[in-house]
């Protein structure tokens, strides 16, 4: 268990800047998810913590100690990867024993046996122990891979998209298992993923990474309800937050170029935003309601049925926005509907910088 800090980290590979000025603080025992698109610098961050890469600039601290000169072995971290995560030619048991047989640890045989048995039991892979790794399914491989991490009792678990190569059902199951395991072990997890559902459902805290910088870091709820900028707003959530260009006129949102108006919850929000300044209004699809007496008329462009709910794509002039409605709502494509939004949930972004006005300044 450990407290991890990355301070002002930059990393370049030749001309390519992977990370620039990255700050990260992961508390002891926290499940921290690093969320970002491919190429955002997630894996690089993980490798810096693991000691497989050295930062071009900045410092990495584990429990307050600068670990710049520590190799991967000395940092006592465990790594779980998306693929190639197991040693080929070895059986499952040999894979689990491998980290314990390092000269660095010198554990007695009985202890090794005991730890392997316990890890196998925790992950329910006891029946696989004598199997070769090439005879395992994807889910079993990832279980063993996690097992190889937990036998070590490392200070930090680093996971690089460990569930991404699995099929949907298995992914869901392992998601729950992994979260439970983390709670049970009380260990610090740094989990990297591009899947925002994984991030939201597993993380105690989520850091959104874009172009080598942490854009926002906070609890899943904070990230979801109060995104720092339009990038986070459109990246997190499925479907993502609706973002509509407009202006604030007399405390009402006036959309441009398509002229339609919606009320805002008055007071503070309207106060911050200068009247008439170009803005982007953000609203989550579940905060858009269909009502017969609602202020704006739209046409239904598309209907996606998700079982418990329907996701509608609405067209107002040349703007489109999505609304999540109960599955029993009866709508047809090209039908005219009226909608409103929940004025309390509207998030205002500056049009130029994309920054949430509540975060600015």
């Amino acid at each position, binding site marked *: 268990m450990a407290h991890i800090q990355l301070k002002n980290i930059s990393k370049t590979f030749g001309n390519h800047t992977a990370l620039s000025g990255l700050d990260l603080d992961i508390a002891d025992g926290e499940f921290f998810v690093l969320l970002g698109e491919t190429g955002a610098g997630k894996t690089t961050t993980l490798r810096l913590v693991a*000691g497989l890469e050295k930062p071009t600039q900045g410092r990495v601290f584990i429990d307050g100690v600068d670990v710049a000169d520590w190799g991967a072995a000395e940092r006592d971290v465990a*790594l779980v990867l998306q693929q190639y995560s197991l040693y080929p030619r070895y059986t499952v048991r040999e894979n689990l024993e491998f980290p314990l047989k390092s000269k660095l640890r010198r554990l007695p045989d009985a202890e090794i046996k005991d730890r392997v048995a316990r890890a196998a039991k925790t992950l329910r892979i006891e029946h696989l122990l004598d199997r070769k790794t090439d005879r395992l399914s994807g889910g079993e491989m990832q279980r063993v891979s996690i097992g190889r991490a937990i036998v070590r009792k490392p200070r930090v678990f680093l996971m690089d998209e460990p569930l991404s190569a699995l099929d949907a059902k298995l992914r869901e199951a392992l998601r729950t298992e992994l979260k439970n395991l983390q709670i049970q072990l009380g260990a610090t997890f740094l989990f990297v993923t591009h899947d925002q559902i994984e991030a939201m459902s597993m993380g105690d805290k989520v850091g959104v990474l874009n172009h080598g910088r942490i854009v926002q870091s906070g609890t899943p709820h904070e990230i979801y309800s109060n995104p720092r900028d339009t990038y986070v707003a459109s990246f997190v959530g499925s479907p993502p937050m609706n973002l509509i260009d407009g202006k604030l006129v007399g405390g009402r949102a006036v959309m441009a170029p398509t002229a339609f108006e919606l009320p805002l919850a008055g007071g503070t929000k309207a106060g911050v935003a200068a009247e008439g300044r170009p803005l982007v209004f953000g609203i989550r699809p579940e905060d858009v309601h269909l009502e017969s007496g609602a202020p704006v008329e739209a046409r239904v462009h598309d209907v996606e049925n998700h079982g418990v709910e329907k996701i509608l794509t609405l067209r107002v002039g040349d703007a489109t926005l999505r609304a999540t409605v109960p599955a029993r709502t009866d709508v047809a494509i090209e039908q005219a509907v009226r909608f409103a939004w929940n004025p309390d949930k509207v998030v205002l972004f500056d049009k130029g910088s994309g920054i949430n006005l509540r975060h600015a300044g």
Partner: protein
Amino acid sequence: MAAVRTSSEVAANRLAIVAVLVVTIIFLAPIYWIASTAFKPRNLATTIPPTVVFQPEISPFVKLFTKRSQLRTPPTPEEYAAAPWWERVVFDGGEKIVRDGQGQVQWSGYPSRFLNSLIVAITSTILAVGMGTFTAYGFSRFKVKGEADLLFFILSTRMLPPVVVAIPMFLMYRAVGLNDSHLGLIILYTAFNLSFSVWLMKGFMDEIPKEYEEAALVDGYTRMEAFFKIVLPEAATGIAATAVFCFITAWNEYAFALIMTNRRAQTAPPFIPSQVGSGLPDWTVIAAGTFLFLLPVAIFTFLLRNHLLRGMSFGAIRK
């Protein structure tokens, strides 16, 4: 899968089998020729048309390993009766085995040349493959400044015909006293094979995911331990394939062995044809020498055949 085959597919398949058979026969014919000549009586070795059916004899091998001289008078019946079976077959051919003052049988030059071949080929193969593996690993895993140029430079050592440098090499070797020495040939063959070995092994190393070693590094192992425990077993296929090729090159090399060695370190390839020199050549003895010479490569390749086949298709089966 029991896929239904059309008659044209069946016909094509049969045609392919016939083609494979024809090619195989073409390749095996010279080997059969050598093997059969090695067991023929001397008078049947050069008949026209060639003798196919004959009583196999062991005498060419006895002659191969011993020093002999022409009999001026046939052996007396007592001498013949007292001689062991292997001496009698030499008597039957009109020759006798040369013995020294103490009556010890004199060996021919063949066994020592064969041993030289083994020493030189095995040592240079181990050196070339070992150094090649380490070099390839370095190129594959680390950022080496001017990597492309260095690799090209390594390859360029193969770009001129080796014989071109034979004379200068001979002069240099004589100056430093490496001519007619095992070490000299070992250095030479290692140098020949090294560029090939580096390039081939680089390909195999690139195929091994670096995640394996990184996992080992994180698991508490040093780079060296990770190399020996994880990388080397994965590279076994590539090492086997590279070793076979290096061994064949070193084993069969003729031109440099002919120029650089004459007695002490002479290998089998220049020695075998040198027996043709005086008088009427005994082709059965030469065939016996060649036949034995073929065996080590055949055995080595046979032992590694599984690795070799996988090695050849390595890039294709991995994604």
